C-alpha cells in the first residue's frame, strides 16, 4: 500500500516540515522572467513543481559563501591572545522538490566532504548540514525530461533514489509518495497523506551518453595528452563559469578573510570555478592551466576520470543545467562523445 497526498495538502505538508527546520522549495524568482530557484518557503508562497530549477539545491550544503571560522585577538596580562572558532551551522534543512539528479548529487558530494574522520578529513560545515537534512524529491515522470537531461546515462537514471528521503510522483489530483529512508517513512506516515493502491506512474527517460570505454580514454597518454583536441572542443567557451555554479556537483571553493574592525573577523569560503584563469594562477604569474583548453581538460577529467578514481563516483548526475545555461551553447555531451571517439 502506497501513500497519497492531495495537491491542496502540499502546503499542509510544508507547514509540518517547517516545524522541523527551514524548508527550501522551488519558487519563481520575482522579476526574473520565469526563473525558478530554491527559495525559503513561507506559508502562502507558491511552490513550482512543474519546471526545473535554474540552480541546484547545492547551496543548501555548500552555500555560495559561508563563514568557516570566527577569530579574535585580545590583549591579556600575558600578552596578545588569539582565539579561533569553527562556525558550525545548526538547524534542520528540508529540500523540497529536488530532482533525482539533485538528490544523487548530494551523495556524490558526500564521497568527498563527508568521509569518515577516522580515516581522513571531513568537512565541518558540510557534515553539519548533511547530518540534519530531509530531502523530498519530485520524480521525473513521463513528459518531464527535456533535451538537456542525460541522467539515463547512469544505470538508475530518473529512478535513482540515492540522496532522497521521500520521492513524490505527480498523479492526477496530487502526488503518490514513496519513502526511501526511515525519515521518509516518518514523513509519509503523517496524516496529510492517505493510503493509496494506485501504481506509481511511469518515469521518463533521457538522452544517453555512452560511457563505455570512456574512462580508459580519459588518461595520460590518451586524450589528455592531446591539448589540440581540448582546444577544438572548447572553442566556444568564454570561461564564464556558469556551468560550475549551476552544477549540482561542482564544489571548488576559495577561502578569504574578512576583518570586522582590527581585533576580530571571519574566515569565509565562497564558490570558485575551475573555468577561471585566476583559479590556478600563482603569485609568480605562472599558471599551470593557462588556457580554456587546459581548463576544459581538467573540468571533464575531474568529473569523469579523477573523481571516479579518487572518490568512486562520477562528478556529474546528468542534470543538464550546464547545457541549458551555457551562454555560448557548449554541450558537455558533445565533448564526452568526441573524447570517446578520439583515436
Amino acid at each position: 500500500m502506497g501513500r497519497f497526498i492531495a495537491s491542496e495538502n502540499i502546503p499542509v505538508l510544508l507547514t509540518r516540515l517547517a516545524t522541523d527546520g527551514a524548508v527550501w522549495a522551488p519558487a519563481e524568482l520575482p522579476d526574473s522572467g520565469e526563473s525558478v530557484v530554491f527559495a525559503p518557503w513561507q506559508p502562502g508562497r507558491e511552490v513550482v513543481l512543474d519546471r526545473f530549477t535554474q540552480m541546484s539545491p547545492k547551496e543548501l550544503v555548500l552555500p555560495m559563501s559561508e563563514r568557516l571560522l570566527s577569530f579574535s585577538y585580545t590583549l591579556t596580562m600575558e600578552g596578545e591572545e588569539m582565539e579561533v572558532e569553527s562556525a558550525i551551522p545548526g538547524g534542520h534543512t528540508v529540500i523540497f522538490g529536488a530532482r533525482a539528479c539533485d538528490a544523487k548529487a548530494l551523495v556524490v558530494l558526500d564521497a568527498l566532504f563527508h568521509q569518515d574522520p577516522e580515516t581522513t578529513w571531513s568537512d565541518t560545515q558540510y557534515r553539519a548540514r548533511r547530518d540534519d537534512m530531509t530531502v523530498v524529491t519530485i520524480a521525473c515522470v513521463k513528459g518531464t525530461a527535456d533535451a538537456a537531461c542525460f541522467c539515463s546515462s547512469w544505470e538508475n537514471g530518473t529512478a535513482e533514489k540515492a540522496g532522497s528521503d521521500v520521492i513524490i510522483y505527480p498523479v492526477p489530483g496530487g502526488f503518490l509518495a514513496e519513502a526511501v529512508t526511515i525519515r521518509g517513512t516518518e514523513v509519509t506516515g503523517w496524516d496529510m497523506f492517505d493510503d493509496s493502491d494506485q501504481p506509481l506512474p511511469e518515469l521518463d527517460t533521457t538522452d544517453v551518453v555512452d560511457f563505455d570505454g570512456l574512462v580508459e580514454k580519459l588518461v595520460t597518454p590518451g586524450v589528455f595528452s592531446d591539448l589540440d583536441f581540448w582546444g577544438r572542443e572548447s572553442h566556444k567557451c568564454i570561461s564564464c563559469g556558469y556551468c560550475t555554479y549551476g552544477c549540482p556537483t561542482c564544489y571548488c571553493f576559495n577561502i578569504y578573510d574578512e576583518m570586522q574592525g582590527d581585533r576580530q573577523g571571519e574566515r569565509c569560503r565562497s564558490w570558485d570555478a575551475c573555468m577561471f584563469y585566476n583559479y590556478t594562477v600563482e603569485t609568480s604569474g605562472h599558471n599551470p592551466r593557462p588556457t580554456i583548453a587546459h581548463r576544459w581538460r581538467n573540468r571533464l577529467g575531474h568529473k569523469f576520470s579523477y573523481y571516479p578514481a579518487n572518490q568512486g563516483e562520477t562528478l556529474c548526475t546528468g542534470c543538464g543545467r550546464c547545457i541549458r545555461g551555457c551562454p555560448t551553447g557548449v554541450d558537455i555531451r558533445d565533448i564526452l562523445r568526441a573524447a570517446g571517439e578520439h583515436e
Partner: protein
Amino acid sequence: MSTIAREGVKATEPLRPEPATVVDVIEETPNIKSFRVVFDDPELMQSFTFLPGQVGQLGIVGVGESTFAISSPPSEKEYLQFSVMKTGEVTSALHELTPGDKVSLRAPLGCAFPTDEWKGKKVLVVGGGIGMAPLRCLFMHLMDHQEDYQRLQLIYGARTPRDICFTNDCKLWGEVEELDFITTIDTEHPEWTGRTGLVPHVLEEEAPDPANTIAVTCGPPIMIKYVLQSLEKLGFRDEQIFTTLERRMKCGIGFCGRCNIGPKYVCVDGPVFTLKELRELPDEH
C-alpha cells in the same frame, strides 16, 4: 603514500588553524625570512610530529594563509621553521611579523619523502634558492640518521652570494667531513670565493654515480627542468628522482580543488612526487 598525521589538524575541523606565536625571525636574504613558530597549546607543541617534506598552512588570521614547507627537521622540538619569500599578500604580511606576534598554523599536511625506504642508499640533494626550504628539513633529517645512509651529498645554488639561504647551516655543513656539500652561485661575484656555475652544470661536473642513489631536487621551475635533464644524462631513472611541488592552494586537504595535476592533489598526494609519478600525469606543471 599520503600520510595523515593528526596533531595540529583535527580531522573533523580540518580548516581550523591552531594559534601559534613567532619566537624568532631570521633574515635569510633581502626577500626571504625564516620564521620560527611555536603552537600556543603546549601539549600540542609537545606531541607534534611530522616527516620531512610535509607542509603547513601558515598565515595571519585576517589576512589569509599559504602553504609552506616545514624547513626545520622533525628532531627540532623547540619550534617549527618556515622560510618565506616575500611575493604576495600573505607573504608580505608575514614579513612584517616580529617575535611575539600571532600566526595561525595548520600542520602537518601533505605527504613526506619516503626516507625510510631510502635506508642503505646514497642520497643526492640538489637545491636552488628558496627551493632549499623543504630540502633543509630533509637534509637535516638525513644527517640526524646519517648511519642509515651510505652517503649524503648536497649541491645548493643561488643566484648571488646574497641569495643564499641558511648561511649558518651551510657553514656547519661545510665543516662536517662525511658530508659532500657544495654551494655554488650562478656567476662570478666580487663577494664570492667559492664555486660558481649553474646548478645543473655543477651537478654534471660532480657526476654522482646513479647506482643505489636517490636524487631529490627542488628550486625554481627552470632549474628543476635542467637538473632533471642532467640527472637523466647521468643515468638516473625516473623512479630514483624525487621533487616537491608548489601550487596555488587554499584548503590544503584536497577539498577546494585547484592544486590537482590530473587525479593527484599536490596538497594531499604530494607535494613530494617521483619523476615517474609526474610523467604519468597531464602536463600541467
